């Protein structure tokens, strides 16, 4: 007997929660306990009084499991609202990466040239290294990091995805 793999699709969820102790553990734990996958998770306070947080979760699951993930999240007492941005329609997704590259000579010049193509900013420089700041969709960041590997990548820090719906209405 072998364990079967299932078909999955990627969804980005915006989860509005009470900013209370343990809320992140509650949500992360729900995903592990029920066998759901988390590709990325970001969290920050979004209200004036610091009482409400917005959590952006990128997950992948079969469609019927996706429906369960949302229902299970909504069932948590401190969760106000869950929006499936992917299902809802057009939305903007961004993440930010800090990318450290080491090198001299041609590699250094190539790194700068590629950074310009990707609109990455230099936020730190030494005689033999740069730290670039780059924002964009996940694919763009992936691609930039892949290119930097060729010219001396030594370290990466990424924020994970934040997302918001397009148009004038709130999600």
């Amino acid at each position: 007997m072998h364990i079967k793999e299932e078909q999955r699709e990627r969804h980005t969820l915006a989860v509005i929660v009470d900013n209370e102790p343990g809320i992140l553990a509650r949500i992360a734990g729900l995903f592990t306990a029920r066998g759901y996958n988390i590709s990325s998770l970001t969290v920050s306070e979004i209200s004036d009084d610091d009482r409400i947080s917005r959590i952006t979760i990128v997950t992948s699951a079969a469609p019927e499991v996706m429906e369960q993930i949302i229902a299970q999240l909504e069932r948590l007492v401190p969760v106000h609202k869950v929006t499936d941005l992917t299902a809802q329609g057009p939305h903007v997704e961004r993440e930010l990466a800090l990318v450290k590259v080491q090198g001299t000579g041609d590699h250094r010049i190539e790194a700068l040239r590629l950074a310009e193509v990707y609109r990455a900013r230099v936020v730190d420089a030494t005689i033999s290294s740069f730290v670039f700041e780059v924002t964009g969709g996940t694919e763009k960041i992936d691609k930039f990091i892949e290119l930097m590997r060729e010219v001396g990548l030594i370290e990466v820090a990424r924020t994970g995805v934040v997302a918001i719906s397009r148009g004038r209405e709130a999600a």
Partner: protein
Amino acid sequence: MAEKSGADILIETLCDLGVEVVFGYPGGAVLPIYDAIFKQDRIRHILVRHEQAATHAAEGYARSTGKPGVVLVTSGPGATNAVTGITDALMDSIPMVVITGQVPTALIGTDAFQEADTVGITRHCTKHNYLVKDPARLAPIVKEAFYIATSGRPGPVVIDIPKDVQVATAAPAPAGPVEHKNYRPQVKADAKRIEDAVDMLAAAERPIFYTGGGIINAGPEGSALLRELAALTGAPVTSTLMGLGALPASSPQWLGMLGMHGTYEANMAMNRADLIIAIGARFDDRVTGRLDAFSPHSRKVHIDIDRSSINKNVRVDLPIIADAASAMADMIAAWKARQHPKPDLGEWWNRIDGWRATRCLDFDDDKDVIMPQRAIRALWEATKDRAPIITTEVGQHQMWAAQHFGFESPNKWLTSGGLGTMGYGLPAAIGAQLGNPDALVIDIAGEASIQMNIQELATATQYRLPVKIFILNNEYMGMVRQWQELTYQSRYSESYSDALPDFVKLAEAYGWKGIRIEGRQELEAGIGEMLAYNGPVLVDCRVAKLANCFPMIPSGAAHTDMILPGNKVSGEMDDEAKALV
């Protein structure tokens, strides 16, 4: 106003909320609360002998009275011992509030004596939990916890209170109820969906009500409304383990329980139905059997208060989010308003009567050896006029009780359904007896399960609770042995109950009356002796050792593949079957 200690605030808040009984066990981190209990006489504290038993007793109290059960235990081992019962309450949707002591705030995270990360450990086996860091927050948190435990789909809530917060003082909080600031479960169904459901029901040729514990949780009103709805539509009714008693077992519309050990007629009717109305039931694996073969020709309406129950295991055509009683009241009103006549289901009932003719619960009686099914039926015959409250442990005896004991009303059947916790029955019976002092409360047990919380015999003795324990003693962990017979060619690995105590002497050692029933001729007299005794009785009823519980749908099989009594079943199953629970 003068400030009060956290412990006093806690006790006063519990009194305000109408709490009458607390099940608990003292320890270092709850000493201030126990001192506050000592100084008052409004709340009755029941001292159990193990914290797990406190949680099951609270469940039994809650399930039989409809009120939330309250537990008080200390930090560390007190809290971890309570985890099984907390998880049990979560799985079976039992309203419960568990108060745990914690090491003083300054010691949290230092691996202090009897420290455990209680909120971390219970985060995923509670509906919600709290760590209270300020005595001024105690009253609102306790009130909010009761609101959460009892509203929507009920469940357990843990409140972890560090010892310094119990001692520190704060101004008393204003009286009055506290709800949660945004948690408002949907209770009232969408009107259009109710109308659609009613029209589907009126048009169906082969409808069936599939009901569950949600109806019991909706209160006595839920059961009354189910009876009215069933009478109005003439449709057959089956129920999960948790829903027994919502419809009287004596009703001609009652098909018996469905699922793995359900009746042939209930499972066949589910399989052949053209419309299933699921109310307060969650399509769990014990009910559905093999999912791709589950009721293939039916449209499905699912009424549940928990949206995550909808489409979790089985896709449904019409989901309705609502409290079971509220939705049934709306359905009855809509049925009448739309002037639907009582449908002619004669043909459907003819088919059902054909399945009933299988007499799937029949068993070969014996004139010498007591068949376990016979023992349950004899117990039912002897007690049915007294509307007893029955609790069970987990295993064959539990399924036989579900099959052969007829329940006429709700809140009389207390069993661990979702989690399947051995050791549930005795403490649950103690809780039920405290909530219903005049009721006849019987724990139908197995000789293996009863030993998991046997120490609670002392609790019943201390509080003079006339609980009865009826052990079906077959000297095996019977359900494990049955699965080994079906799946592993009768290789009975570790399922024999060796070195059993003398249960009669054990009962007597705890101040109980002990009775042994050894042969068929002694059965009725033994039960009579148990019932005649005004106090706690333990009956060691020796039954056939190798009897199996049928009907049975093996794991991963379809409803139509039931094993009936008389089928040859011993053998070896393939790996796919072995991997299923």
